[in-house]
């Protein structure tokens, strides 16, 4: 369990980090290290250079724009969890963060690291896809922006430019009247999920449901949004929700491993998605978040 030899650099700016990445095609970014360091220890990753971005102040910021809360790539998960902007404007992310790793890994792990790592069971990636967040990389001197729904292409595979550095992720601000739900099933508390689901529903002032976003994670190669438009014109009764979500899950490809069968994952993800949608609707009804 010892890593291969590599060099280590601690740039002070994003430009400097990009320079280092461009100069060595086998360089990797080290953010919180909670996924990369185990991969180094198991020698699944054998970089020649680690670029530690922890000391780039710009990457630890939260920025509020008209429509987004932009979270710097180096923001620690535990910091985001208690950030007032996140609590107010990205309630789904706030809920999901409780399920990310354990307290000790959240203290080190970062929002950007989780997105760049693209683990199929990552809760942050699931929220990014469900809400269609904007993922911004700096590559050389250029900014490259991805929609989260296009960004993930396989397990631990993304469209990230090889010499790019993830700078920030812009999560859309939740509308004034909105409810959220997040559920997952894992073998032990906060462990890798066997199935997970996220939902965000927004309504107009007179209570009409305007937008329903639902996503599932851990079942396929990457988290996916479900096609649930049929719900918008429905009565939103329990039976209808169940029917629409079962239909939406029918097309989702599920993977099998020694922890769970594909059929189990699909069954559990469907049920969790139903619960997440119900939770979100209940929040709107109760006006818990307005």
């Amino acid at each position, binding site marked *: *369990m010892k890593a291969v*030899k590599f060099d280590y650099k601690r740039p002070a700016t994003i430009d400097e980090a990009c320079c280092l990445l461009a100069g060595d095609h086998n360089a990797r970014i080290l953010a919180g290290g909670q996924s990369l360091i185990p991969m180094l*220890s198991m020698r699944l990753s054998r970089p020649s250079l680690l670029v530690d971005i922890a000391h780039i102040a710009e990457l630890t910021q939260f920025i509020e724009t008209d429509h987004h809360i932009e979270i710097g790539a180096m923001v620690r998960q535990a910091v985001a969890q208690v950030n007032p902007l996140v609590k107010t404007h990205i309630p789904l992310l706030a809920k999901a963060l409780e399920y990310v790793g354990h307290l000790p890994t959240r*203290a080190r792990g970062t929002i950007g690291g989780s997105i760049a790592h693209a683990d199929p069971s990552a809760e942050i990636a699931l929220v990014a896809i469900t809400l269609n967040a904007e993922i911004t990389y700096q590559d050389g001197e250029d900014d490259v922006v991805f929609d989260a729904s296009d960004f993930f292409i396989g397990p631990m595979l993304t469209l990230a430019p090889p010499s790019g550095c993830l700078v920030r992720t812009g999560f859309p601000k939740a509308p004034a009247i909105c409810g959220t739900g997040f559920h997952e099933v894992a073998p032990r*508390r*906060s462990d890798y999920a066997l199935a997970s689901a996220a939902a965000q529903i927004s309504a107009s002032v007179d209570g009409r449901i305007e937008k329903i976003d639902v996503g599932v994670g851990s079942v396929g190669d990457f988290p996916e949004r479900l096609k649930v438009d049929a719900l918008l014109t429905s009565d939103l009764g329990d039976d209808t929700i169940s029917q629409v979500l079962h239909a939406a899950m029918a097309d989702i490809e599920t993977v099998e491993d020694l922890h769970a069968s594909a059929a189990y994952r699909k069954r559990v993800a469907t049920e969790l998605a139903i619960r997440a949608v119900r939770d979100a609707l209940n929040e709107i009804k109760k006006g818990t978040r307005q």
Partner: protein
Amino acid sequence: MNDVSIKINGELVTAMVEPRLTMLDFLRDVAGLKGTHAGCEHGVCGACTILYDGNAVRSCLMLAVQVDGQEITTIEGIGGNFERSGELGIIQDAFCEAHGLQCGYCTPGMVLAAEALLAKTPSPSEDNVRDAISGNICRCTGYVQIVDAIMLAAQRLGNRNDMLLPNHPSTQQDK
């Protein structure tokens, strides 16, 4: 090789190390502090927990070079009294009394997870305690006594703080 200097339990340790050296191996092999245990070495078991910035973190998931110029606390640093090392702290004592350890391998990690919890949440619920140690595996599966021990420690730390208040019965009796 990189030069690193890290303040461990208040003492500065300086060494030339390879960037691939984890903080765990730095503590055990360079600083000679064997209290931090090497369990799984890939972030699953929590035996290598240390305190960094007030948080319990896994030293096997940090490189020593990442911690260069910073400060950490290990199990050796949380005893009752630095000057008389060997004396148990309140949390460690509670683990003994509530039989919160069997083989002892997970214990340093459990104690530090408890330390981080109680520093932020002085009167935790049992659920808070279970959450705080959810990333630490006890292979003897003695979780019930570990939770008991942390609850006992919380109670004792609470009493000690109460005793510092001017109107507490114990201080009244002294007069």
